[in-house]
């Protein structure tokens, strides 16, 4: 099939990001031609400020070197401004006469600096701050001149002022409004900012309106006069008074514009063949000047250019971070508050810290942070997700890590204070400097990309918050927060876990191919992320109907043992409630000797781990263990693991309840239960809690009058203390309530979501309403759990008995012919 022609006007961050997204989806659909007015390949405009400040070079901020265009077969015209769009003949014409025909056209013309109509604005030395040329001129002027004036105390103006000061100029910032960055900061934060910038030698003139730029003897600007008559010297004037969408080309082609090229939710203009993204666009009346929204637009637009037709752009909540080294400042959403909102404020003027959170009806709608922005990403996520914060309201101000438990990065909570040599990701040994380098070298903006390139936070994920902070402080406003809510399952689909679960349930889908077909999977057979998730959703939604697909399980669940670093496996037989017998122990000892098991270890779940067993020996080991009655402990599964117990009233002088038998009953009930993630229980016979039930998915604590039930605890990556669910009287009730809670989690949890994350997502109140308050629903949940667990057979016994299953473990011997 002949390729279609795509022409992109605008070689900046939005246009090229859209091309990159398109290449991911449909690399062969188009012949692509790109026109760029500037004589450079796509660079990171956000990082012009560090270049100006002398912290980076132009070479550092190139995002797509010329090789990239060549390798992807993209024709690039640099330094060619497109003047005409001939929509009738579907071609564009550049000022030098270069023409290109299109089937589809993408406009990404960006914005132009707004220069107020002040007399003298055309004088040499009066410039705007937009591109590499402006930056070069500022750097050159700083070498030969002294006095600089920056008009505009917004984000860009302050970054320019800081850079010029770093270059040794005497800099005054002139601002029309009563405080700096009034579109991002409230007055308190702005005053703190002003003080710290003054301490660096910047001067400020607020509420001043410029009347004229005055020409000097040399012909270039020499001074500036205000409406009140004051005059100040100025060898260089940088006007940073805002930007305007560059719609000149679109308007000349009679495309409908209204403070930007007007597009719909698919980024299409009024001409269906013409799309537009970036700062030139007006979407639902808003033109965005920050990078994160542009990337969201680019992604949606690419989806439609690739003819997928399923993405919609619905506007963005934006956040701001000032890229002035040493100043930590963050704002997002509605930070000014107003009617119907509450404010939580923490203000320590001497410590240089100010935090304001704006809440409306138990959701966070905006935040300003000054001096300590460590939790900026966390707050921003909540603003974006409109998450209900009712349950964390009392400690919201103290940040994500105010509670105990995050491990793996030496207790560091703030990336800003970490040296480059500090280890951020303790799993993969990645230091802060490695991450910063990767972000700069590869032009990364999103957490997922940082993970792919550095592996930081890609294993246990406990350092995710830190990596996000490093990303945000390195790329500033271009930081693209990971989508936490409604996040796509994986790269194979646009759909979230919630949507996929609902479709499987509501449309009665019972096979993986059926799900992939019904939901338009982008890959023919999925990937290692989505297949296990789908397999779990199917077998948990349709027990008895959907057939388990071993090939869609991770190796541990397929081999019923845990793979180790050297390719051997570990075997953990079940010990119900942590109880064992001499015969079982003897059998384990015999197996260990017979198969020369190198390591025997007690697990945290109170049973014995036989480590270092060859895969081909597994069925033989299981046969021997099975003869003594030992079955799989599922130490390898997203499934029931253990029920830990204390000795309880059976033996202990303090015991109030028979925790051993309670634990055994629970573990027998749950045998064979697959779940979104692993599940651990504990039963303690009294509140001394020797079984550590406070950090389990379900924790049962015996008291004289019955049992207290706790849920959603976690002893792993981040210690989470279990929350009190309810109190019950009998063993039967413990079974019913625990079972109902776990079934609710099994039905509603997303794959790889532990109970603590599930409960944090839906709220404990909702869980209680579903299975504590509603007795009928509780009984139904409990019955569904028991139904799906009936007839479960020990997988080890099956593998021993069935030759077809045993094949998985056998090594093929071949007859090699002597050469």
């Amino acid at each position: 099939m002949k390729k279609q022609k795509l022409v992109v006007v605008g070689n900046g961050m939005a246009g090229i990001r859209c091309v990159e997204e398109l290449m991911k989806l449909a690399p062969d659909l188009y012949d692509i031609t790109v026109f760029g007015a500037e004589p450079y390949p796509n660079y990171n405009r956000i990082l012009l400020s560090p270049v100006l400040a002398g912290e980076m070079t132009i070479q550092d901020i190139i995002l797509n070197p010329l090789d990239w265009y060549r390798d992807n077969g993209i024709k690039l015209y640099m330094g060619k401004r497109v003047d005409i769009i001939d929509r009738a003949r579907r071609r564009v014409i550049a000022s030098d006469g270069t023409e290109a025909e299109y089937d589809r056209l993408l406009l990404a013309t960006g914005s132009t600096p707004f220069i107020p109509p002040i007399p003298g604005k055309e004088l040499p030395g009066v410039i705007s701050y937009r591109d590499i040329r402006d930056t070069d001129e500022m750097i050159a002027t700083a070498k030969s001149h002294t006095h600089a004036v920056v008009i505009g105390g917004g984000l860009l103006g302050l970054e320019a002022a800081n850079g010029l000061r770093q270059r040794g100029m005497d800099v005054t910032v002139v601002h029309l409004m009563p405080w700096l960055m009034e579109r991002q900061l409230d007055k308190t934060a702005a005053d703190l900012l002003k003080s710290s910038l003054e301490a660096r030698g910047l001067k400020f003139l607020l509420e001043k309106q410029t009347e004229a730029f005055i020409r000097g003897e040399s012909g270039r600007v020499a001074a500036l006069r205000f409406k009140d008559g004051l005059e100040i010297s100025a060898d260089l004037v940088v006007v940073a008074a805002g930007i305007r969408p560059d719609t000149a080309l679109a308007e000349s082609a009679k495309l409908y514009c209204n403070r930007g090229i007007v597009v719909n939710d698919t980024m299409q203009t009024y001409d269906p063949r013409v799309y537009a993204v970036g700062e030139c666009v007006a979407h639902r009346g808003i033109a965005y000047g920050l990078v994160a929204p542009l990337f969201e637009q680019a992604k949606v637009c690419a989806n439609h250019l690739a003819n997928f037709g399923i993405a919609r752009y619905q506007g963005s909540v934006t956040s701001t971070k000032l890229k002035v080294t040493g100043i930590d400042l963050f704002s997002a959403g509605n930070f000014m508050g107003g009617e119907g909102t509450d404010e939580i404020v923490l203000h320590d003027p001497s410590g240089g810290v100010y935090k304001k959170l704006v809440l409306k009806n138990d959701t966070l709608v905006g935040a300003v942070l000054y001096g300590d922005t460590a939790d900026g990403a966390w707050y921003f996520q909540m603003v974006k997700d409109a998450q209900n914060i009712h349950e964390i309201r009392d400690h919201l101000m103290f940040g994500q890590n105010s509670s105990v438990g995050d491990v793996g990065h030496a207790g560091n909570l703030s990336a800003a204070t970490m040296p480059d040599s500090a280890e951020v990701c303790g799993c993969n040994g990645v230091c802060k400097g490695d991450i910063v380098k990767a972000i700069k070298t590869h032009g990364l903006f999103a957490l997922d990309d940082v993970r792919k390139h550095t592996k930081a936070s890609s294993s246990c994920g406990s350092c995710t918050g830190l990596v996000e902070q490093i990303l945000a402080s390195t790329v500033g406003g271009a930081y693209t927060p990971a989508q936490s809510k409604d996040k796509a399952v994986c790269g194979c689909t646009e759909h979230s876990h919630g949507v996929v679960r609902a479709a499987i349930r509501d449309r009665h889908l019972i096979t993986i191919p059926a799900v992939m077909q019904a939901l338009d999977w982008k890959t023919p057979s999925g990937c290692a992320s989505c297949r296990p998730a789908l397999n779990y959703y199917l077998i948990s939604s349709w027990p008895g109907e959907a057939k388990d697909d071993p090939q869609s399980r991770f190796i541990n669940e397929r081999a019923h043992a845990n793979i180790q670093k050297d390719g051997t496996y570990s075997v953990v037989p079940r010990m119900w409630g942590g109880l064992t017998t001499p015969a079982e122990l003897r059998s384990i000892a015999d197996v260990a000797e017979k198969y020369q098991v190198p390591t025997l270890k007690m697990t945290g779940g109170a049973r014995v781990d036989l480590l270092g067993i060859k895969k081909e020996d597994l069925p033989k080991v299981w046969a021997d263990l099975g003869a003594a009655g030992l079955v799989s402990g599922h130490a390898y599964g997203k499934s029931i693991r253990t029920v830990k117990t204390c000795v309880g009233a059976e033996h202990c002088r303090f015991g109030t309840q028979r925790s051993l038998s309670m634990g055994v009953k629970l573990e027998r009930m749950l045998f064979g239960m697959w779940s979104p993630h692993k599940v651990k229980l504990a039963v303690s016979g009294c509140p001394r809690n020797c079984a550590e039930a406070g950090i389990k998915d379900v924790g049962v604590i015996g008291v004289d009058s019955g049992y207290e039930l706790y849920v959603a605890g976690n002893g792993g990556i981040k210690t989470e203390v279990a929350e009190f669910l309810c109190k019950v009287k009998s063993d039967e009730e413990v079974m019913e309530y625990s079972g109902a809670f776990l079934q609710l989690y099994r039905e509603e949890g997303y794959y790889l979501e532990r109970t603590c994350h599930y409960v944090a997502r839906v709220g404990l109140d909702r869980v209680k309403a579903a299975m504590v308050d509603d007795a009928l629903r509780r009984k139904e949940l409990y019955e569904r759990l028991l139904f799906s667990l009936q007839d479960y057979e020990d997988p080890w016994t099956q593998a021993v008995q069935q030759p077809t299953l045993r094949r998985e473990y056998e090594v093929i011997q071949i007859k090699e012919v002597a050469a």
Partner: protein
Amino acid sequence: MSEWIKVCALDEIAPQGSRVVESSQGRIAIFRTAEDKVFGLHDKCPHKGGPLSQGMVNGDIVTCPLHGWKLGLKDGEAVAPDKGCAKSFAVKLDAGTVWLKLN
């Protein structure tokens, strides 16, 4: 020139699965894709030596079970941004039988 060596019947490898062959050149993972194409790779991930035969097969890619590296079945090359290569072996399917050629 080395000869084609008989491995097993195609049916003895699960679709989207693999089997391990012991050979004088070390362990070789023989993969069968969903479309019944067969491939052979040295059973050792270039990253940290993980047994690729134990990985999940999607399309023409296997994901190493240890740290999730993805390798192309055709040539053993790691999928970017990871860099590395597992040695590949010629494997063919003939009338329901899988054959392997050692290098």
